[in-house]
């Protein structure tokens, strides 16, 4: 199902022409921003020097820190009387940055979300529960607008009060749920305790953090949904930048609206499709806050193969932020990889935490706390010793991480309603 088939399947020269036209417009728009004016001047560039899509490589990158330095309105390309809404980013990696939208931006953004939800098979008649934070987080109001756009009946349930959320799903016969994957796991756990009947659900849209294929299996089995991965970033509007189609093999990014580059995060060199690197995006349709070559810090890859659904090239599922990448004893690990390994072990429960310390020997120590799955406890101490050894060995074999594993009581680890913070780096360097 398509929301806008022509634009979603646009390819080849026709797409490139549209991208170039929009890129030129975007560059023009950025010249209202002192930061970009100065950038072009310092680089000896004139907006008219960008004649092809490849010419974009002449433009320096924009970093999150640049946006932060422009706090609050340094990156506005329009006067305040054209601004229709202001959000701030979640500030998981520092102090918040401001993002602003014109009326046109809000319209474009909901259009992109409508494409995503239609791609997931949703339409008028669906009851869509949005269990995301409705305050400054773009996943609340953003997703809400998109779901309204396709004509779904939207339940703005927000976060918290899990029992009430579950009752609403049951009573309203909710068909689609949007939340973070961590919250979905928590909701699943509580629903199972309550013996709730959530069989009306058919689609789960999970985003705002990286999650593994094993989590997908878990959520699909236990929540009886088809799970769709959703990627977004407030600086690029918010949720809806990229989204899975029914193939569940990578996320479609809307190429008419976002120009994608993948770079080596160390050297800044642009990588060919099929290579993992940092996602750099130039939004082509943003009025209030246009950006050029924005470094997302997210690690992904542009996939080479065409998708059977007919839409354009996809981004591989995200490992996580490059900021989240842990270097422990010289080995690079993403929390999502640890999660993937843990979820492949059935005796391990739903929750885990990772701690990194610098030990007395000045070596990094990896400590993983896992809740064990109650149903696997036979009453013997040896169960735990065996499980502990199994986890240690599996982590060592699959991601070459040497970890100390602590088993903790079921229900004792923190549950997350928004973005999960499962990794705590306690190293003092």
């Amino acid at each position, binding site marked *: 199902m398509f929301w806008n088939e022509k634009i979603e399947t646009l390819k080849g020269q026709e797409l490139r022409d549209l991208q170039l036209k929009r890129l030129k417009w975007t560059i023009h728009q950025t010249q209202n921003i002192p930061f970009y004016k100065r950038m072009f001047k310092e680089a000896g560039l004139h907006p008219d020097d960008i004649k092809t899509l490849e010419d974009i490589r002449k433009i320096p990158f924009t970093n999150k820190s640049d946006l932060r330095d422009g706090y609050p309105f340094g990156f506005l390309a329009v006067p305040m009387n054209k601004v229709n809404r202001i959000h701030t980013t979640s500030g998981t990696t520092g102090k918040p940055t401001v993002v602003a939208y014109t009326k046109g931006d809000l319209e474009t953004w909901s259009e992109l979300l409508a494409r995503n939800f239609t791609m997931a098979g949703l339409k008028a008649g669906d009851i869509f529960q949005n269990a995301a934070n409705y305050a400054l987080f773009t996943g609340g109001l953003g997703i809400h607008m998109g779901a309204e756009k396709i004509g779904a009946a939207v339940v703005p349930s927000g976060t918290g009060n899990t029992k009430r959320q579950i009752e609403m799903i049951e009573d309203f016969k909710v068909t689609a749920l949007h939340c973070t994957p961590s919250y979905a796991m928590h909701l699943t756990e509580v629903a199972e305790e309550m013996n709730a009947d959530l069989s009306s659900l058919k689609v789960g849209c999970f985003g705002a953090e990286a999650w593994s294929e094993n989590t997908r299996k878990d959520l699909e089995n236990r929540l009886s949904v088809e799970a769709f991965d959703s990627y977004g970033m407030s600086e690029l509007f918010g949720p809806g930048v990229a989204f899975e189609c029914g193939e569940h093999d990578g996320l479609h990014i809307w190429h008419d609206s976002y120009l994608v580059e993948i770079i080596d995060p160390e050297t800044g060199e642009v990588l060919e499709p099929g290579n993992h690197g940092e996602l750099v995006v130039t939004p082509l349709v943003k009025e209030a806050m246009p950006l050029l070559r924005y470094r997302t810090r997210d690690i992904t890859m542009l996939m080479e193969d065409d998708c059977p659904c007919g839409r354009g090239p996809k981004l591989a599922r995200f490992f996580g932020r490059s900021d989240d990448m842990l270097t422990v004893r010289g080995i690079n690990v993403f929390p999502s990889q640890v999660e993937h390994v843990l979820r492949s072990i059935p005796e391990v429960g739903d929750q885990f935490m990772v701690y990194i310390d610098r030990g007395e020997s000045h070596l990094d120590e990896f400590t993983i706390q896992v809740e064990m799955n*109650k149903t696997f*406890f036979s009453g*013997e101490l040896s169960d*735990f010793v065996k499980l502990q050894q199994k986890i240690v060995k599996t982590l060592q074999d699959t991601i070459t991480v040497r970890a100390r594993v602590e088993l*903790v009581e*079921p*229900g*004792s680890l923190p549950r997350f309603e928004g973005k999960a913070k499962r990794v705590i780096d306690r190293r003092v360097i």
Partner: protein
Amino acid sequence: MNEEYIIKQLSIFSENKAGKLAAIAKIFLDTGVSIQAFNIAEANNFGVIRVIVDKPEVAFEAFAKQNYALKYTDVLAIKMQDVPGGLFEAAKLIGELNINIEYAYAFRSGEYGALIVRVANPGEAAKALKKAGIELIPAANYHF
């Protein structure tokens, strides 16, 4: 077979951390369950609390309600002569019968000592032990 000697021990998973034992003891207190025998086995940061109580079902339900991981484990209680060498006597006989003890713990109850043993097949073991003249304490002495 020999069911009257099979004691329902509760095996409760618990982390080793400050205040944990008190929290567990509080559950017994609040439910009015009285503890007959108590033992902690530990490894690394976790342990299994093994406990024999007068009302196992009441205790089980109370712990399950509080999200504890726990199971019933069938154990036997061997009566030991309360003289030096009582443990040796009991252990020697069990060894001679080729019964493999997974774990055991001793406690004193009234005027005699008891050795709680966990074996692979408690029913069979009870039969063999009785035959060899070892005195087992009936479950009815613990569960009321």
